[in-house]
């Protein structure tokens, strides 16, 4: 983005290095982009709440919200307005400052991630060379917010729920981080744009199909991301937590909605990270990144739109998968969850990183092996997709069900 602003300043006839107002223009644009990012994050969160309710309902043979707006699309706006109007309760014995501040820690931690996400080949707010490292660091603020909310509520239920949630998130940071090191190794850079450019536009050129450890790494990352986002099957802090709401029990009104905004917005973050790191990000099939860079004028604009759509499409697919999992799988118990992390995912992710490092040496010696592995894994994935579709068709035939997108809107 800095390049873009610099070009703008030159267009006005000033030299960015010497002009005294450069920094003010930078700050102005930073404000503008923060505003855009926060709005995007919040609106995404709201729309996903609607999407989740509709998807859940259709999976459960129900209809879901269908009164407020077409297909209930404005339901989330109605809910947001309602929450704004609700009474703002703060328990008398709660720690006032921490109680009020906790949701904002979570919002900050969550919104800051968007700064490093590349939406298209020119559309990234800050393409830092420590991109993924920055993302991992900033998402840790969410834990701070959770612990603060649990502690300041001055209720034993809340505290235990918060501690449990914090334990879960902190534990799963490790396999998530290690699994994210795999694309970093393969790309040779921590910058998110760099990682995307190191992949190619076609599926068999994605990092997920690079070698078996990378595929495993993708799944480890996906599972850890589910745990970090408090999504089923890891939603013990939320749904059960001793049948009370855990860390957000004492919250009401807009503060309460911040927690859930962060949760739904996190779906986007998780999925976008998975897509960026492992599935080629905004790379459009048929157009390698260099060709996109070379375009100018209107074709460049259409290319941007295409890559944004590709990125959004892949991300939304994974958001759908996460929602699908929520309404299919039961919940794990807390000790089973910790077991899985420390006894299975952490060793697996370490082994994966070592394997990838070794694999890179092999590929450097014999590049054909690398290409063969790409095609092999991509082919295996294609076969898996075909088998899945066959299974779905079989299930539908079995129960006499049919696809019906025409009714119950």
């Amino acid at each position, binding site marked *: 983005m800095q390049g873009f602003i610099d070009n703008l300043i030159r267009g006005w006839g000033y030299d960015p290095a010497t002009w005294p107002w450069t920094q003010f223009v930078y700050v102005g644009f930073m404000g503008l982009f923060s505003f855009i990012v926060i709005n995007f994050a919040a609106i995404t969160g709201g729309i996903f709440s609607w999407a989740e309710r509709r998807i*859940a309902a259709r*999976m*459960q*043979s*129900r209809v879901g919200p269908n009164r407020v707006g077409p297909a209930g699309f404005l339901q989330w706006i109605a809910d947001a307005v309602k929450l704004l109007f609700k009474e703002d309760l703060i328990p008398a014995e709660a720690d006032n400052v921490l109680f009020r501040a906790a949701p904002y820690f979570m919002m900050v931690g969550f919104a800051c991630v968007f700064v490093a996400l590349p939406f298209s080949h020119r559309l990234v707010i800050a393409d830092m060379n420590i991109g993924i490292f920055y993302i991992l660091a900033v998402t840790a603020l969410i834990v701070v917010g959770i612990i603060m909310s649990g502690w300041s509520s001055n209720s*034993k*239920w809340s505290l*235990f729920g918060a501690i449990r949630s914090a334990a879960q998130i902190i534990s799963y940071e490790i396999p998530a981080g290690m699994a994210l090191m795999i694309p970093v190794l393969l790309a040779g850079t921590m910058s998110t744009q760099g990682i995307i450019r190191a992949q190619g536009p076609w599926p068999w050129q994605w990092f997920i199909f690079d070698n078996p450890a990378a595929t495993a790494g993708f799944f480890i990352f996906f599972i850890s991301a589910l745990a970090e986002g408090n999504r*089923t*099957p890891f*939603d*013990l802090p939320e*749904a*059960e937590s*001793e*049948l009370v709401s855990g860390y957000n029990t004492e919250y009401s009104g807009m503060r309460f909605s911040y927690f859930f905004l962060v949760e739904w917005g996190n779906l986007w973050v998780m999925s976008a990270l998975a897509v960026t790191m492992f599935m080629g990000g905004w790379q459009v099939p048929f157009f390698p990144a260099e060709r996109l860079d070379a375009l100018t004028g209107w074709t460049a604009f259409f290319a941007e739109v295409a890559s944004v759509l590709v990125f959004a499409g892949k991300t939304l697919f994974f958001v759908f998968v996460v929602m699908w999992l929520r*309404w*299919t*799988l*039961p*919940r*794990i*118990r*807390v*000790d*089973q969850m910790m077991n899985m992390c420390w006894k299975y995912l952490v060793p697996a992710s370490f082994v994966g990183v070592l394997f990838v490092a070794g694999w890179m040496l092999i590929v450097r010696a014999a590049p054909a092996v690398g290409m063969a592995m790409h095609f092999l894994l991509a082919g295996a994935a294609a076969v898996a997709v075909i088998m899945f579709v066959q299974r779905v068709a079989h*299930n539908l035939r*079995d*129960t*006499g069900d049919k696809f019906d997108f025409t009714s119950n809107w």
Partner: protein
Amino acid sequence: MSKPLEVPTMDMENKEVLRRIEISGDMLLNMGPQHPSTHGVINFLVQTDGEVMKRAIPEVGYLHRSLEKIGERCTYNGYMPYTDRVDYIAAMFANQGWAMAVERLLGMQIPRRAEYCRVIACELNRISSHLISVGTMAMDIGAVTPFPYALREREFINDLLEELCGARLTYNYLRIGGVAFDLPSGYEDKVSTFLDHFEKILDEFNRLITYNEIFIKRLAHLAPIPAQMAIDYCLVGPNLRACGLSFDVRKALPYSVYPDFQFDVPVGKGEVGTMGDAWDRFWCRVEEMRQSCRILRQALAQLPKDSQIMGKVPRKIKIPEGTEAYSRIESARGDMQYYVVAGPGENAHRVKIRTGSFTAMGIIDALSRGLMIADLVALIASLDVVAPEIDR
């Protein structure tokens, strides 16, 4: 076991007990009486350190409606709607227990077609009660989707029973001496269509949740009850059969026309965990639904062609004082027993209803030591207790 227990009572002035629990570092929490599940209003006093429970003491009585005392005031016929409320999820069985007890007091037989109508209504009710039970159990474990699926199937049964007797929940269908209404025309076809559809759904249900990896991890080896302990605490129904004891009142003490039918009694085998654990109790209920479908098909095929649905019952039922009768039926929740002592006039002198859920509550305290709180929810769900049966 004979040491007096320190249970904090309603008199919370007595802070000494609370203080002693707090000093030990444990929390004393109330789970309930409002639950986000449909087991009803039951309270649990849970002593826990946040993760593992030391004790969970159930407190009941929130739904006590003095149905037994009302039995002493109503006529024998007039009490039938009250028996619906003894277990409103499996109301046909409660009706049948009362009808059988009073028919034994009168010493009368009821027409065969009435018996078949009773069996059809009861087995349909057994399926719908088990659907609620397995649906809510899956929901308590965290898988929310099987619950609407179970309710969707239950809607078909509700429609069938509504067509039969006019009600969706509290049926009041049976009468002393028979049943209230005959099967409507075309009913056999509707039930057959439903059964064809439902048996496929059961397979889908098994694929979705019963053999799901996480579901099994949550429920296998959870609170396994040895058969001897189950007998000692007088557990009945699927809870008892899951422990390996094959006892079903329909087979052991046959009543009505059940000897005419061939069906199996699912018994827990410890297929994925220990015998008698929560998963076995869940699986027994799913399999019982399948067996109920079998019974229904046979009942529809063997239905007597006449139209007599009520026996000869005097207009005012008066029974000599002191006559007593005991009836046992296999309700959805197990062995439901009615003990009726006739009074001087037209009412009973004493009605005692012994339900499976009441004794199942007694075992929760003993099983809960050392469980985690998430497990307590799963345990209660697996025992399929409903508050109206406990409290009456």
